[in-house]
């Protein structure tokens, strides 16, 4: 399994971490994984919501010393991949 693509959104406030994840996901195929690094607690609510809307899954989430690491597996509709 290939290493996940890292999205570094530390220091950014919601919804910017979600936007960074979304933009990184553009063009990736279903099954690809992203690791989001963030510091805004809002990602605990917003990223799972974004995943539910687009058919992606939050596989894991860790938080240590205010730094959040969230592993996302892409599936379903990928933003910007228009026919």
């Amino acid at each position, binding site marked *: 399994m290939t290493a996940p693509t890292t999205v570094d959104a530390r220091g950014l*406030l919601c919804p910017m971490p*979600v*936007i960074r994840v979304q933009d990184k996901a553009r063009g990736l195929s279903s099954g690809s994984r992203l690791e989001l690094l963030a510091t805004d607690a809002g990602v605990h*609510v*917003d990223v799972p919501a974004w995943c*539910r809307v687009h058919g992606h899954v939050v596989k894991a989430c860790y938080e240590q010393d205010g730094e959040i690491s969230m592993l996302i597996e892409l599936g379903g509709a990928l933003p*910007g991949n228009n*026919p």
Partner: protein
Amino acid sequence: MTTAIALISGGLDSMLAAKLVLDQGVDVKGVNFYTGFCVEGHTQSIRSREAKKPKRNNALWVAEQLGIELELVDVSEEYKRVVLNPKHGYGKNLNPCVDCKIFMLEKLKELREQGRLAFDFMLSGEVLGQRPMSQKRTRLDIIAKESGSEDELLRPLSAKLFPPTLAERRGWVDRESLLGISGRHRGTQFRLAQEFGFEDYAQPAGGCCFLTDPSYASKLSDLWGARGRRTYELEDILLLKVGRHIRPAADFKLIVGRDEGENRFLEGFRRRFPHFKPVSHEGSLVLLDGAATRPNIDLAARIAGRYSQGKDTPEVTISYTSCDGVSEDLCVTPMAMHEVRNDWHLGR
């Protein structure tokens, strides 16, 4: 399959507009533009950790309720030209609503040209006459014309009050199933929400944009006045959403956290602003924005004492830290309530 792109603000009207078209078998996708002034944006991170109900991103919530995809688009940098120089002027506060809607519709078309979005027509939740300035018929006509969207733009909630648009003429949507709502009373929308089973939808006062908020607009005006120029960075407009803003003198203001959530948020700005924190008592974190001269520091320390639990004691110790990270303890008499003048408080 016909595809429509819906401007999703996170409020009820755009939600209903999208639902009306979705129910006609059209493939609806949503777009939410992040301007930096969105009510629901950064306030997420300001909330108290103990809050019973976590704040949500309402645009994502709407998309989830409707079962549609949502593209979030950061336009905060480009949006400055709309806020700073609106061709059609401001509404009651600093809300450039007409220019804002023109900008967003233009942006949708631009994203289509770039291949990022694909759609046959656009829809918005505008309601004729609902907002006193921006939703007058003449203004709505200007929005459609100047954005170049013309009849590619469908306003499902007021469609019957306008000539048939492309989507209606082509038979993509049935005009008879659309609505003819006008005016400020929102009873029809509330009934419709109930019929559709929408509960817990967002109803922020003044809409989803901080620029419609008189307190926020007043603080933004103060910022421009203090700097002598009309400009801003994202950091500026975020800080205007948080805390008490107190300007005791023309060359500096203080931002005082009001609760644990705001203090935590302001801590993220400690390296960029000189700041104060009571050490002898519990109290708010206070940022100093402006000239950190000795008289200003001394005055600010007394105000920081006012917003500590030692406010009624003869003396409090306040730790002052400069931008260089150099700290010193200041023993000061907390300012009395009557000494903090009402006209120092911005946005009241």
